[in-house]
């Protein structure tokens, strides 16, 4: 339990550090920011003045930060100029959509990575192994952007898939099952793109960890006792590779979020990505800060989850922290 507490504290420290860092960077070029905002015709002067009043834009940096923290605790996380509402009301629905996309992609790419990695590792040097290695290397080299554009082109040309967005326009009154089908159709290409982007990295680590475990003495001993290969795979080798793979899981959240940012933009998936870009181009500062913190928090929570799994799985860590 001390372990978990320690990790949570570390997570909070990082998030606070990021928020402070954002504010400091903001302050380094405040002239640019606010004078540019005034010049931006999309943002009404009334919004800017409201902001000045609420957040004391002329006051010192620590004071501004304090006001922002107060707003965060209230649940607002600042104010969006462009949309004229609190940042959180703008971001939360987006978070949900990003999470949906990422969870599906995470599950599928890990599933394929585990299955294919174990399969290849069980037959090292065989044609399955070498073919998979070549295939995943190719996938690794092609950037996510290219996959996204290619799939988008497929969607537009063949019309087999919707070319972006999350929901078709005529779905609002439809039955749940057809809504679900529509959602799946919209999910397919973005998930495929994200999956192809993250799968090679996962596969490589899974395969090498598995191969190492399968070649280790205690597994060979188990084979020597006559245990069948699959039995060995799942009961002996898997727990041994769990550690590095759980750590990899922790890192993969951040990786996935980054990939999905680009994919969301290309496929117009209404997640955090498009709104972040829009806010940057529109100089909607509190939205930017809010999204950065939320995305960092998502990644950190994922990492924490992995830490908990690690703690639960590895008796050594439990012992160290007694």
């Amino acid at each position, binding site marked *: 339990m001390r372990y978990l507490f320690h990790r949570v504290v570390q997570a909070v*420290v990082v998030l606070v550090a990021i928020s402070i860092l*954002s504010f400091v960077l903001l302050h380094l070029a405040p002239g640019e920011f606010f004078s540019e905002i005034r010049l931006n015709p999309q943002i009404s002067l009334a919004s800017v003045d409201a902001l000045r009043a609420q957040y004391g834009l002329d006051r010192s940096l620590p004071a501004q930060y304090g006001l922002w923290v107060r707003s965060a605790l209230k649940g607002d996380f600042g104010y969006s100029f462009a949309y004229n509402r609190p940042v959180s009301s703008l971001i939360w629905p987006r978070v949900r959509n990003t999470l949906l996309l990422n969870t599906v992609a995470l599950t599928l790419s890990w599933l394929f990575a585990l299955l294919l990695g174990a399969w290849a590792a069980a037959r090292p040097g065989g044609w399955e192994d070498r073919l998979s290695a070549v295939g995943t290397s190719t996938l690794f*080299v092609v950037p996510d952007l290219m996959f996204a*554009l290619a799939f988008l082109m497929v969607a537009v040309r063949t019309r087999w898939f919707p070319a972006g967005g999350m929901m078709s326009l005529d779905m609002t009154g439809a039955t749940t099952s057809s809504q679900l089908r529509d959602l799946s159709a919209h999910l397919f290409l973005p998930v495929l793109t994200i999956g192809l982007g993250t799968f090679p990295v996962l596969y490589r680590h899974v395969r090498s960890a598995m191969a190492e475990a399968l070649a280790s003495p205690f597994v060979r001993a188990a084979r020597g006792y006559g245990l069948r290969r699959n039995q060995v795979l799942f009961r002996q080798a898997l727990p041994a590779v769990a550690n590095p793979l759980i750590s990899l899981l922790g890192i993969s959240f951040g990786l996935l979020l980054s990939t999905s940012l680009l994919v969301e933009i290309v496929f117009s998936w209404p997640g955090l990505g498009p709104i*972040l870009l829009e806010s*940057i*181009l529109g100089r909607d500062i509190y939205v930017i800060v809010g999204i950065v913190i939320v995305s960092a928090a998502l990644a950190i929570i*994922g*990492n924490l989850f992995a830490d908990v799994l690690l703690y639960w799985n590895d008796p050594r860590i439990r012992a160290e922290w007694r």
Partner: protein
Amino acid sequence: MSLSRTFVVPLAVLLLLHFVVVLAGFIAPYDPATQFRDHPFAPPTRIHFFDSRGGFHLRPLVYLWKSNGEFAKYEADTTRTAPLRFFLSGDTYSVLGVFHSSLHLFGVDEPAHVFILGSDGYGRDQFSRFLFGGQISLFSGLLAAGLSLGLGLLLGSAAGYHGGLLDALLMRTTEAFAALPWLYLLLALRAFLPLHMSPAQTFLLLIAVIGMLGWGRAARLVRGIVLSAKERNYVVAARGFGATEWYLLRRHVLPQTRGVILTQAAILIPQYILAEITLSFLGLGVAEPVASWGNMLSALQQYSVLTSYWWMILPGLLLVTVLLRYYILAQSLELRVESSPY
């Protein structure tokens, strides 16, 4: 042996590519910002050795286009040809900002155009933009990696050598930031810089921002090596001969980081190239009219471009081959480093 084939060949290809890109002004027929408004989205110009009457020409020729009134629909006018000329005079350019010239490797006289990779919506030659864009994309990756590795080497060896608080601080911060989504952080960092800066400023600032992303991993690897190297018996022995700490660092410890630094370079450079391309694709990188492979690809976000003008994706395909070279290089370096005596 095959090991040197996977090392020498990609390295040679990459060096050649960088060399070509530096000489972009000479090799490209046009200035990247020149717009031919009457030829938007022209497909790649075909080069012919045989003319329409079946005659063979040693010097290849191109046909002039004639538009049939519709937007971006062209037909080759086989009655009007223009020979491909070499070493001709054209738009002026500078090499590395120092050397000025107006000599171009090849081109055709007006009113003909030679668009090897086609033209974009403004009628700009994609081939020229690709070469000039390569300067931005390739070199920002290179320089950002240099920054990252320099920083990582400095901080990693300081942490590994002196240990204590510095080391603990380094490990904690790099560990904490390793889990974060890099693209979000990159965009945020970019957001806090002014949107409109001069191209030179943008270039340098982009390098600085991108370079901040990956120094952590390099620092940790260097730290690990320094930590184990400084305990070795030969370091102890050298200290016994009266060596200063600086000598030990310089002659015994740091040389061992060479392998790791090289491998990390081969891994980081392509990642950073992609980071710059992503930023430019989103409109947050170098501003138009400066070309980058990223902003060349961003036109593809429009469905019409994506489906009708296939040549616009060619920069992307060429990008993939560059990344492939770096990947092969990284693989072979990893193998070499593993088998080195250290």
